[in-house]
């Protein structure tokens, strides 16, 4: 059985809307990014699978 190593890239990606910042600045005002809900990242299927597994068994 081979070992699998995950990189962060495989678990989440920077939000393309806010470029990973979690907030959008317009007219000098900063607002939370609505596309990623301010997280700055979007989870991948693998990331969601891992998170659900950890939550289930924690």
């Amino acid at each position, binding site marked *: 059985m081979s070992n699998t190593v995950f990189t962060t*890239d*495989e678990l*989440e*990606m920077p*939000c*393309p*809307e806010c470029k990973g910042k979690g907030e959008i600045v317009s007219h000098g005002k900063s607002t939370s990014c*609505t*596309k*990623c*809900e301010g997280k700055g990242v*979007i*989870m*991948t*299927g693998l990331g*969601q699978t891992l998170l659900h597994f950890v939550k289930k068994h924690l």
Partner: protein
Amino acid sequence: MGQASDGNDFFVIKAEENGVNVIGLTRGSDTRFHHSEKLDMGEVMIAQFTEHTSAVKVRGKATIQTKHGEVKSD
């Protein structure tokens, strides 16, 4: 198979370079990114629009096939 016409049509995305991102957007009043999938060159993803996903954004060089035809993204 391949003859779906009940609203559950599937589409195919083939990555033409490493690091192509397929991003799912939520159905409903607020359009959020709820899922992303990274494809490396040559990887294929077959997907459907669902109760949760009403739109898909593809970033990177890929070939996308739908019932409407084929389109290439850069």
